């Protein structure tokens, strides 16, 4: 036995001589808890996607009227838990459970979808200050779907609008694309954003708030203690992110038009399919990175401020915060 190596700090009254070794911050997550949020979000949204995929009852009429996803599941996750990790986990669940498992993987397109949904969820979740308030959660759901589906659709329409001026060779197709995108967007927003988004999320989140967190050994989100790492610093920030996002799509498109104007062909659909995808993925990635960096920077700044605040003895501070919860 090598117990001699440790100078057994046993005897003396530890409370005074050996202060608390770990001082928890109730709203700050350990890396393990981040993993937990990530995994939970992934698994639940994966399951939800399998359901939308295999339940034929949900295919009402043409494809565009189907439920594209059960948005309420990840929205509840980002409302209750740390928005960033929940937002990163959910779209991965979709990729793993549906796209890989069911052999429905569409390559690079998945990446674009991942980034769009993750960004939408992250911003939506960051809007929620108090998950017990139904409106906040409902707005989060709508914002998430709006960003995920709406921006993509809007950019698509823009593409066609610009494209039509240069192209009259195919009768009907541009309009059909316009109509298709319009219908898709409207129905997606109505079905995924409202019926399977805002309404169920607003119903579930307040019921789960305060119940699900202790099961995972976490403190519930407290409206008085802002979460570190959430995107919500100012209202302007969100606006900026959205504008950036749209702009990125627009820029990507203009760039494309510039290159491709001369060789516009009737089957332009697949023509710009791949190249446009690449560009928009890159643009999305740039925006996402910018958003995360901004959020981190402001969180860092706030933490610095907090550290400069007069510090009570560590244990005391922790105990008061916890009892205050």
């Amino acid at each position, binding site marked *: *036995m*090598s*117990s*001699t*190596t*440790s100078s*057994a*700090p*046993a*005897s003396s009254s*530890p*409370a005074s001589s*050996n*202060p*608390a*070794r*770990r*001082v*928890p911050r*109730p709203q700050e997550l*350990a890396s*393990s808890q981040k993993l937990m949020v990530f995994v939970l979000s992934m698994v639940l949204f994966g399951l939800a996607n399998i359901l939308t995929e295999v339940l034929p009852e949900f295919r009402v009429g043409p494809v565009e009227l189907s439920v594209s996803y059960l948005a309420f599941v990840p929205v509840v996750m980002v409302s209750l838990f740390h928005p960033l990790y929940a937002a990163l986990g959910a779209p991965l669940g979709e990729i793993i459970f549906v796209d890989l498992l069911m052999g429905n993987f569409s390559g690079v397109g998945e990446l674009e979808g991942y980034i769009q949904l993750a960004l939408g969820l992250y911003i939506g979740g960051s809007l929620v200050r108090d998950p017990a308030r139904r409106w906040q959660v409902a707005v989060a759901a709508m914002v998430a779907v709006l960003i995920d589906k709406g921006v993509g659709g809007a950019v698509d329409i823009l593409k066609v609008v610009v494209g039509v001026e240069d192209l009259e060779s195919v009768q009907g197709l541009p309009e059909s694309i316009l109509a298709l995108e319009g219908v898709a967007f409207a129905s997606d927003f109505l079905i995924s954003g409202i019926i399977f988004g805002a309404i169920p999320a607003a119903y579930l989140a307040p*019921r789960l708030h305060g*119940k699900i967190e*202790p*099961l995972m*050994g*976490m*403190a519930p989100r407290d409206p008085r203690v802002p979460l570190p790492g959430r995107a919500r610093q100012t209202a302007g920030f969100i606006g900026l992110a959205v504008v950036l996002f749209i702009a990125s799509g627009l820029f990507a498109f203009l760039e494309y038009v510039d290159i491709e104007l001369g060789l516009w062909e009737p089957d332009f659909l697949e023509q710009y399919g791949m190249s446009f995808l690449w560009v928009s993925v890159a643009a999305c990635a740039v925006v996402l990175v910018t958003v995360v960096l901004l959020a981190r920077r402001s969180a860092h700044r706030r933490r610095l401020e907090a550290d400069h605040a007069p510090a009570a003895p560590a*244990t005391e501070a*922790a*105990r008061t915060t*916890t*009892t205050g*919860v």
Partner: protein
Amino acid sequence: MPAVIEVRDLTFRYPGAEVDSLVGVDLTIERGDFVAVVGGNGSGKTTLCKTFNGLIPHFWSGEMLGSVHVGGTDTHESSVAALSHQVGYVYQDFGNQLVRPTVRDDVAFGPINFGLTDHAERTEQAMAQLGIEHLASTFVWQLSGGQEHLTALAGVLAMRPEVIVVDEPVAELDPVRAEETYRMLAQVNAEQGTTIVVIEHHAEFIARYARSVVLMAQGAPRWHLPVREALSRAEELAEHGIPAPQVVQAVQALAPEAPVPLTVEEAVTALAGSGVLTGSGVVTGSSAPAEPRATSSRGPAVARLEGVTHGYRDVHGHLSTVLDDLSLTLHEGERIAVVGSNGAGKSTLLRLLTGLDVPRVGEVEVEGISTRSTSAARLADHVCYLYQHPEQMFLQDSVRQDIAMFPQQRRRPGTAELVEEILDRLRLREVADRDGRTLSGGQQRRATLGIALAMTPALLLLDEPTSSLDVGTRRDVTAMLAALAERIRCVAVATHDMHLVAEWASRVVVLHGGRVLADTTPAELFDDPDLMAAVHLVPPQVSVLGRALGIHPPPLSVAELTARVTQPVAAGVR
């Protein structure tokens, strides 16, 4: 023996919690010991054990005071990864501990992650040691509970730790499987000198396998004693929800001065030595069991299965036969225990009675209604089925709403009064507004019984109602079941719990290979060791003791045993 775990002045509080979970714990566990940690719910058993492998404070970053040394290393200076070479942990919900698709892959997960080059050898050895080599390429979701537990244990063994912590192995396993786990643990303990720590409240297992016992109460050890001494404090243990084994109770009642027995054999010796026994073991069966439960005149039929054959298709497309041309009638006023080994078809039988499934061949009728002719939702007016895992029954956000759900949805008159009455009857009023999942094990069972009562079915089916309950709570549930009789025409329970069978059932249906192997009473079942062995069941200790003393039919409770061992006669038996 040198200490392998040393805990000094340990106090811990979970983040966000109102009270300390551990308060000034001082504890030394010696290398090579087999320790049982016992204590009521919330006594800090599990929290204590999580300090051994560094999950506390590295994973759960609560407030921690004091120190824990494992093999001389201060856990605070170490990391979870480093400590996992020294301490292995098998969880109470061990199924969730398995993270890889196949058994071999899961067992190798730890060694591979830690970059141990002999991982293949370790994996094979761990599987061989527990006798699960044949499962190596099975998918983990295909395993039975017992196999899952052994896989989790193998994953821990492959790391070759100095200490293995097993959290409540009996909670999710049937007694035969738990016995197997214990045998394996004892073997590892004996062959490799691995220190074993089990959190356990089944005194019978403690008596037979543990060498020392730690009693936890209010976040600190009350005492740490050798097992025999610990079990002699029967009253103190009972206060903390751990009633003494039946042999201890019997011997203390009949021969208080005899040493505390740990096994049935020791109990026989103790009783023989103290001269309690009758001369030739002729404690007659004529002094009949305390209450005659066998229903000779059967009531009208409540449910009927006629020539039922049923089976499921597996992932490879093979059709397995679970029930094979089975016929059975359940009568009014009966308390039926359906027993049999895993896979004997108990759960399938219950599912067919609910109408969730219809049989491939044959007819199932409940109150004269064929399950083929109606939907399961309509049949729910007549039958209620309670799942093994209560959390699957909690669909609403409070116990009150869960109980009210069925009558409210079906617009039955008098729902409000009924719900209030049930809450009072099942002592659920204080927890009525909480979510079922946040309750203790016993409260959860009572809440599911409340759901059943509110459905006022003619036939109530329960799947393993006493699994994962401590002994005290189990009794509570058994008593509740007995009280149901006045409301419900017939109750059938699928169970491995022979104490429940002994104390509650009036009729036992033994399933084996998809057929009814025996249709009998508890006493007759326990008097037939061949039958019991054939279906992998272990009778309650008191019945085994009774038989060993020559009592036929064997007693079903300690009270019955003491009542029937009447005349103390001179020694000289066996």
